[in-house]
C-alpha cells in the first residue's frame, strides 16, 4: 500500500523532511565525490592509452601526478639516453602555460615536441579537424586542440601569442575526449625552446625497441642518471591505481559514513513512529492485518523515506557536479556513470530497508491487546 505509506510519511512532515535530508546529504556526497573519482579515473585511463609502451623520464622530486616542474634534462642528457642500448627513440618535451586574460585556471598548456614525433604524443589514429599536421621544418606554426579553437574562436591561419612570440595556427586537431589534447596547443619544440629561452626539458619520453624490455630499460636510465626518475607506463599505472584506490576509499568512505548516519536517522524516525502509532498497529491487527503485512508496511515507509532522500541526493549531487564543471576548468571532468547513479539509489533503498527493519519488526511483533490498552 504505497499510497498509504506516502500518506503516513506526510503525517509527520518535519520529521520526515529531516530524515530525508539526512539521506540526501549522504547520497549527494557519494554522487559528487564518486563523479570526481570517476572523472579522474577516466582521464588517467585516456592518458594511459596514449602513453603505451613509453618510458617517462623526469627529474626526481617532481611527479607524474602533480605535474612536472623544475626538471632539468639537457640536450646532452637526451643524447646520452639515446646512446643506451635498447632505446629506439627519445622525445624531449616542453610545457608552457599560456594565460588567457588573467585567469590562471583557464590557462592552456602549450606542448613542445618535434613535429615528426608528434604521433607518439597524440596517437597515430587522431586526425585533423581542419588544416594540416605539424611538419618537419615548420616555423612559427602550431596545431591546436578542438576545445581551444572553439573557446578562443580560432581558425586555421589565425595567429596566437606564446611566451611573447607569435605563432600561426596551421591545424585544428579533431576532438579526442582527452583534455591534454583537446585543451592543448602543440608547437615545434625548437621554436618553443627559443621563445621560452629554455635550456633543458622537464620531461623526455623514451620509446624502447621492444615493449617487454621497458622495465629493464627504465632501470638502466635510473642507474645512469642518479637524479632522474624513469617510469614505465606500467609503473605509472600502478602508482595511479594506488592513488585511485585511495581516492575511491576516501570518497566512498566519507559518502558512506554520511549515508550510514542518514540510515540511522531512518531507524530513529521509524522507532519513534512505531512507538507513537502503537494503538494504530493494534487496530490494524484487530481488523485482521497479519504480522507480515505490518512488517511490509513499515518497511515500505522506511525505504520510501530513504529512496526519496536518494533521488533528491542524486539530483543535488548532480547539480553540485554540474556547478563544479561550469565554474572551474577542473583538469578532470567529473562523470556520473549510470552505475554510480543506479548504485547510489540502490544503496539509499537498502539503507532504508536495513534502518527500517528493526522498528518494522518491533511493530509486527506488537501484541494487539497490549497495543490497544496502551494509553
Amino acid at each position: 500500500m504505497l499510497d498509504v505509506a506516502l500518506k503516513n510519511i506526510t503525517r509527520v512532515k518535519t520529521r520526515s523532511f529531516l530524515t530525508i535530508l539526512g539521506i540526501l546529504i549522504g547520497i549527494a556526497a557519494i554522487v559528487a565525490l564518486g563523479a570526481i573519482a570517476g572523472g579522474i579515473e577516466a582521464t588517467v585511463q585516456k592518458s594511459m592509452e596514449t602513453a603505451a609502451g613509453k618510458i617517462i623520464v623526469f627529474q626526481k622530486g617532481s611527479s607524474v601526478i602533480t605535474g612536472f616542474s623544475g626538471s632539468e634534462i639537457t640536450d646532452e642528457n637526451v643524447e646520452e639516453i639515446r646512446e643506451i642500448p635498447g632505446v629506439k627513440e627519445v622525445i624531449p618535451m616542453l610545457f608552457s602555460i599560456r594565460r588567457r586574460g588573467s585567469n590562471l585556471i583557464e590557462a592552456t598548456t602549450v606542448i613542445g615536441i618535434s613535429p615528426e614525433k608528434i604521433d607518439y604524443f597524440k596517437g597515430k589514429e587522431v586526425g585533423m579537424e581542419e588544416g594540416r599536421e605539424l611538419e618537419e621544418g615548420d616555423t612559427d606554426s602550431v596545431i591546436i586542440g578542438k576545445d581551444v579553437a572553439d573557446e578562443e574562436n580560432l581558425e586555421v591561419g589565425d595567429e596566437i601569442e606564446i611566451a611573447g612570440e607569435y605563432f600561426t595556427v596551421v591545424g585544428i586537431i579533431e576532438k579526442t575526449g582527452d583534455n591534454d589534447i583537446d585543451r592543448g596547443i602543440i608547437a615545434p619544440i625548437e621554436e618553443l625552446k627559443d621563445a621560452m629561452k629554455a635550456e633543458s626539458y622537464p620531461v623526455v619520453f623514451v620509446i624502447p625497441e621492444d615493449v617487454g624490455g621497458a622495465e629493464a630499460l627504465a632501470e638502466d636510465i635510473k642507474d645512469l642518471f642518479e637524479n632522474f626518475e624513469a617510469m614505465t607506463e606500467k609503473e605509472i599505472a600502478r602508482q595511479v591505481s594506488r592513488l585511485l584506490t585511495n581516492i575511491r576509499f576516501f570518497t566512498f568512505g566519507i559518502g558512506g559514513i554520511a549515508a550510514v548516519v542518514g540510515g540511522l536517522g531512518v531507524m530513529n524516525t521509524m522507532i519513534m513512529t512505531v512507538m507513537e502509532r502503537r494503538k494504530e498497529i493494534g487496530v490494524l491487527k484487530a481488523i485482521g492485518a497479519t504480522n507480515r503485512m505490518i512488517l511490509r508496511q513499515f518497511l515500505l515507509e522506511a525505504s520510501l523515506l530513504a529512496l526519496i532522500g536518494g533521488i533528491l541526493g542524486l539530483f543535488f549531487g548532480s547539480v553540485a557536479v554540474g556547478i563544479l564543471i561550469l565554474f572551474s576548468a577542473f583538469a578532470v571532468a567529473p562523470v556520473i556513470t549510470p552505475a554510480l547513479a543506479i548504485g547510489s539509489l540502490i544503496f539509499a533503498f537498502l539503507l532504508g530497508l536495513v534502518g527500517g527493519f528493526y522498528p518494522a519488526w518491533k511493530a509486527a511483533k506488537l501484541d494487539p491487546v497490549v497495543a490497544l490498552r496502551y494509553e
Partner: protein
Amino acid sequence: MSKVILEVKGVEKIYNPGQPNEVRAVKGIDLKVHKGDFIAIVGPSGSGKTTFLDILGCLLRPSKGKVIIDGKETERLSEDGLARVRREKLGFVFQQYNLIPTFTALENVSLALRVAGKSKKSAEKRARELLEFVGLGKRLNHPAGLLSGGEQQRVAIARALANEPEIILADEPTGNLDSKSGKQVLELMKWLNLEKGYTFVVVTHDPEITRYSNRVIYLKDGKIIKEIIKKDRRIIRLDRLIK
C-alpha cells in the same frame, strides 16, 4: 432459534500464571452467540469484561477452554490464522474510536478494506457507501481527528462493518461520549442489528444499553452471575429510534 455463530466453552484467562502478580481475570465462562443477537456484557470495572471480549475477538488466547467461530475451533490456528478470522468474521469498535486522526473518514474506513486485499478504488467505493450508511455522507473527506466524538465513533462502526463481519464486538463504545451522542451511537447499532441483521456483543458499564439488547450478561470477578434474556427482540420500538 437462529444459528450459533460464536461459542465459547469453559474459557479461563490467567494473566502472569505462577507469578506473584498472577491475576485470574476470567474464570470459566460458557456462551453461545446466535445470529442476530445484541448482547450486552455489563459488570463493574475489573470484572474481566475487556479480557473476555478480547478472547471472543481472537485477540487473546484463553488459558483454558475453547472459542468456536462459525463451527470452527480457533485453538490450533496460527497468529496469521487468527488474523484471518478477525479479518473475515469480526469487526471491532473501541472506546477511544482509534481512528487515524490525520486520515479522512473515507481513508480510515478504506484502510480496513485495503488490509483485506481490496484495491484502492473498490475500497473507496465501499467505504463511501458505508459512511453514507452510518449517516456521515457529508463528512467523507474530513480528517477523522476533527470530527466530534459521536461522529468518530460512527466512522469506527463503518470501519467495523467494512468486511461484512459475522459479529461486531464493541468495548465501551459510549464510554467517551456525552449522553446524547452516546445514545445516537447505540441507536445506530440497534438499527444495524434490527434492520440489517448484524450481530453485536457490547461491553459496557452503561446501564442504558440494557434497554437496547436482547440479552444482558452480568459479569463479576470473571464469572457470569446473571443473564437476562428478553423474549421480544424488538423491545425497543423502531419508531423511537432516530433513524
